[in-house]
Structures are given as C-alpha cells and as structure tokens.
C-alpha cells in the first residue's frame, strides 16, 4: 500500500527499469551517483533517461508469420526501422528485447548477436550502455527481412529452434 512512497532496493530498481541489478549499479556510477542501499524513485526516472531505457514490446505488433521466432525478429527489426535507427541513430541494445517473455527474449537476443557478427547491426559502447543501430548497407536487407521474412542464412537455424 505504501510501497509507492518507499525508495526501492536494488532489485526493486532493477525490476522497475527492466535491467539487471549490476547494470543499475553501473548506470548509477556512470551518471555520477553513489550506490546506496535504496534508490530514490526520482533517481529511477533519471537513470531511465541517462541509459536511454525504453520498453518497446507491448506496443509492437507482430507480423503475420507462421514461425513465431521469425515473427519476433521481424517485429524487432521493424521497430528499429520505424524509429529510423540506421547509422548514427542508435538505441540501447536491451531496448530491442526488454519486455519480451523469457523464451522470446532469448530468440531476440541471439538474433541481435548474430546480426552484429554479420555486420547488419552495429554495436557501439558508451557509458550509458551498449548501443545498436542498423548498418546503412544492410538497411535494404532489414526491410526485406521485415516485409518478406527474407533473412541472412545464418539465422535459418534460429527459426527451427
């Protein structure tokens, strides 16, 4: 009942932000705060801004695809294209899968790591966290994946599970 008035402990802050507690600690340090036993609620909001933390899933509509795994990846890349996250326009990597159920989360995270290895997605690191964007050279490939489910062969195994 009074929980909304109480500061959060580290786990509470992590749940609120959808990040691992250790990442919350890292964000606190990089944002110039010390790590106290509890995290004030207004600081949660500050960390959300500092870390560029967004929750996309929930508002993402999955494309019509008989393979759920492929649908997740297509939906994720479509969300990036809609936000024009190409080249220098980046987003926090975890934004791509935050809010997904555990199994879908793993699918999305695996696809992101494969696409980074293939150069389709570009990973950069900043004090605010790991950032990703679509490589300009793969923008058409990303669109083909979203519209026709046409993916790099390296992802084929993922569809089969």
């Amino acid at each position, binding site marked *: 009942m009074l929980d909304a008035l109480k500061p959060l402990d*580290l*786990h509470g802050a992590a749940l609120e932000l959808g990040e691992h507690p*250790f990442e919350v600690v890292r964000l606190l*340090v990089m944002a110039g705060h010390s790590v106290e036993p509890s995290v004030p609620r207004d600081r949660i909001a500050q960390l959300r801004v500092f870390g560029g933390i967004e929750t996309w899933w929930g508002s993402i509509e999955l494309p019509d695809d008989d393979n759920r795994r492929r649908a997740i990846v297509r939906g994720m890349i479509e969300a990036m294209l809609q936000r024009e996250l190409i080249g220098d326009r980046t987003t926090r990597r975890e934004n791509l899968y935050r809010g997904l159920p555990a199994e879908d989360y793993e699918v999305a995270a695996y696809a992101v790591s494969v696409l980074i290895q293939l150069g389709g997605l570009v990973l950069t690191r900043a*004090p605010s966290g*790991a950032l990703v964007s679509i490589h300009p050279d793969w923008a058409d490939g990303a669109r083909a994946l979203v519209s026709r489910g046409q993916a790099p062969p390296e992802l084929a195994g993922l569809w089969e599970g």
Partner: protein
Amino acid sequence: MSTHEQPGSIADALRAVEEQRVAAQERHSARLAEVDEEIERLQESIQNLQAQIQTLQESRAQIEQEQDPEFEGGAELIFQVLREHSGRLAERAAMWAEAVAAVEAQKNKALQSPEIAPLVAEYQQFRDGGDAALAQLPPSYRKAIEEVHNKVRDQLRAHLEELDVTPELDAESIPLDVVFSSDEGLVMIITPVSADVYSQWAGRPAGLDTRIAAKIVEGLYTALRGTAAEAAEAVYGGHEGLLAMELEIPLDMSGFPERLQAAMEQTFESAVDIAAARVELRLAKVPVDLLLPADDEEVDDA
C-alpha cells in the same frame, strides 16, 4: 743404425727388407688398433652421456609439467580462503536479514501510531477510490483535494524516511577478502559472494550479499569512470560458485590496478550499512595464475 746383420747378398737384403716391412706393418696395425679402441671407448662414453642427457631432458620436461599443479595448489589455497569467507558472509547475511526485518516490524508498528495512522488512512482512502471520485468534481475542488493529498503523501514520505534506520549489529567484525588480478589487459575479480547473487537475483531478496556485490561493482566502475575504458562492460559469472567478474581494458592503460584499489577502498569505506553489519571488506591483488581454474575453464556466464 740398423741392428740387423749386414746381408751377404742381394737376396738376403731383400729378405731383410721384407721382414722389416712386415714388422713395420704389424706395428702400424697395432697402433691403429690401439687408436680405434680408444675411439670406440670414447664413443661409448659419449653414448652414455647422451643417454644421461636424454634422461635429464625427460626429467626436466616432467618437472615443467609439474609446475601447473603447484600453481593449482596456490589457487586452491586462495579459493579455500574465499569459500571460507563466503560461508562467513552467508551467516552474517542471515543475521543482517533478521535485523532488517526487526527494523521493518518497528516501522510497521510506528505507522499505526496515533501520529501517523490517520495519515496512512487518509492516503489509503484517496488511493482506493480517489481518482474516480476526483474526476466527478469541479476542477477547483479537485485541485484543493489533490493539494491535501499531496501534503499527506509528503508527510508520510518524511515519516517513512525517518523510520528507515540502518540496523546496527552487535556482533564480531568479520573481514571478507575480495581478490583481483590484472594481466595483459584482463582484470579478474573474485568475490566471496555467491554467484547466485548475479544469476538468480530475481528469485532472491536484495540482502547483505547483494549489497556487497553492488559495492564491488560500484568500485569497479568508479575506477573506470573518466578513463579511456569507461564504456567497457564487465562480464559476470560463477567461478567455483563464487561471483567472478572479468573486464578487458586497453593494453596501454597504465596504472589501472592502483586506480581500482583506491576506488574499491573508497567505495568500501563509504558503505555505512556494511560497516553496521560488522563486515570489513578488503581488496587484495594476486597473481593471475592464482585465480585461474584448475582445468583452465573460463569464467562461466552464470
């Protein structure tokens, strides 16, 4: 001068020459045989020496291979201490959880006091149905009620902050060691905290062990902040059940171990609650060989 008799004829002379030639050949052959025998003896000696060298080389190789187990023994000693400290921490964390629960019970009791209970009731009443009721009121009334609610909320928040005291354990102070190594751009930290604090965090309370892990992570990133490697991210995992951290830093980044040591010490000292739990965190630098697992396994992602 020859000791032979003067030959009387050429035939005698030829016989004498032949006899001398045969004798000379026999002497020559005997000398050769003597030298050959000496060579053979030396060759045998050489072969014996080579065999000895071979044996020694084999022994050396064996000793070289035996060097790792010696280090493993060293690592085992380090981990023995860390495991023992981990056990201490588990006991202390249980004590701390009890103390925190006692404070929470006191807090709940205080919320029922005549001073605070009416505020709680009013806050609760507003939260339970305030929004719907407010929506039906004229804006001026709504604003006035919201102001009252906000005032109640702020008073309650102040009370809660006041009641949020850090417990103080009446117990013997326990030292807990955290070890780290820094070698060729790889920083490894092994803590006395269970790896579950990282891998199973969602299913456990944020207790003293989580708090200690958080301060270690804070120390690590405080050391990184403002350096060329401040965007680096540590990899966390379990190492013999203990929380381990690995971090790659640029090879040309000098002075990081000292920076890490200073940042950790400062971070540990600033943790009032950890001191109240009567835990003394210490950081020790050890050679990297003493942190490597026996079978060269990497730090597992937990």
